[in-house]
């Protein structure tokens, strides 16, 4: 595999992961702001299902089945043959549709616009939420100090 395709896979993995993890309302609001949407045909209509989440014994050992999570998926094909896949957490079919269309548009000339108007603000919003939690956690870090040393 060339560096070029590895780079492309890495970028696609990033935006698909971002869309999967995105809060429903944030993504749908940003998606509503994209006026020019391509026409498409369904390759797979949105379907709700589950994925068995696995952990590892002791955090590092053999895999075990932890429990399932809900996932909605679908696939679209644009007029020019570009295929987009949506895999999103939860049971919101319009979100899976948006994710699949965004995935397809990111492989076309619309990529820059979608990146700037949807993926970048989404990424910033999710990063801000995450950073705020991390900052609150940091404020609960224990600072130990010595009361009495027993040398005397």
């Amino acid at each position: 595999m060339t560096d070029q395709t590895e780079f492309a896979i890495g970028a696609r993995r990033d935006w698909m992961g971002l869309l999967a993890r995105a809060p429903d309302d944030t993504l749908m609001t940003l998606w509503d702001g994209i006026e020019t949407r391509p026409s498409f045909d369904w390759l797979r209509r949105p379907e709700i299902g589950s994925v068995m989440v696995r952990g590892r014994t002791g955090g590092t050992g053999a895999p075990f089945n932890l429990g399932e999570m809900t996932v909605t998926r679908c696939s679209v094909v644009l007029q020019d043959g570009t295929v987009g896949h949506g895999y999103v957490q939860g049971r919101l079919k319009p979100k899976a549709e948006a994710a699949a269309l965004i995935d397809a548009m990111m492989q076309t000339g619309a990529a820059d616009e979608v990146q700037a108007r949807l993926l970048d603000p989404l990424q910033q919003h999710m990063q801000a939420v995450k950073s705020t939690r991390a900052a609150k956690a940091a404020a609960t870090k224990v600072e130990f100090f010595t009361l009495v040393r027993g040398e005397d």
Partner: protein
Amino acid sequence: MYVAVKGGEKAIENAHAWLAEERRGATDVAELSLAQIREQLSLAVNRVMAEGSLYDPDLAALAIKQARGDLIEAIFLIRAYRTTLPRFGHSNPVETGEMACDRRISATFKDAPGGQVLGPTFDYTHRLLDFKLAADGDVPKVPEGSARQEPTPHITEFLKDEGLIQDEPTSDDTPGDLTREPMEFPANRPLRLQSLTRGDEGFVLGMAYSTQRGYARNHAFVGELRIGKVAVEMDIPELGFAIDIGEVELTECETVNQFKGSKTEPPQFTRGYGLVFGQSERKAIAMALVDRALRWKELGEDNLGAPAQDEEFVLSHADNIQATGFLEHIKLPHYVDFQSELELVRKLRREADARITSKEVAE
């Protein structure tokens, strides 16, 4: 003879109508929204997701509302719904070392890298009822510190570097799945952990407590307890590579336990492991203690005959949906069964009475 009877449809219909009215409660009190349950009763939502074995906070909130707050009934609803979903596949094992930790404490290493991060804990509260909450819901402004950028390392890694704790060698074995095949004994550790993580919190807690009180005591320390979000990654066949399909909040507990060593292993620490959906630390610690107790055979320890060492006992009774199904079915109509028992007892009584009477006549 089996006698089929029919009836009660009207009674059942009316009972369900009344149930709906009672569920709603007084109509001059505002109705609960699912978002309120999800946001403000989040630990109940977490428990329903963990024992319902399906991570979906909105569904768990709906189940709690429908079940009038009866969490086992809510778990039942989630389990039933889960069976209707097609399964797309399984995730890659989650990387708990990459967790964005809200909380991370160690009872064994004060100065562990990453520090002791308390998070939003009930610990160190005075457990006094706060009547201010009854009056208003004002929240204080939460102080913020300087956020840690890098992932927080697992504490057991430090013991591992010194060779002082039993290793957990990585493998890519396919774990058994008790939702697909009935549990068989002896069960291996991955199956035991699956059973424990969806097991009843009260039952697992009771079993864990029994080990602390001396029934197969294994001297556990909480090496590490962490709560936070991890990404869930799955291989997507149509893409040919793995992507994140979401993220879940997990509680992970690793206990560090004394181990005298065996014929093949030097004295070292061993581990118990707990991993549970949501913020569920009582359950995660209890799971780790029970996991460790059930490992007696593979560690060459003695069977002390303690309940927590008996995997058939523990795993067969940990599931509250199985348990409640069997327990509660005895309240359903058993008229015919009971009629035959009634006949039997009457007959025995007649015979006993006859014996007494004939004895009295003889005297």
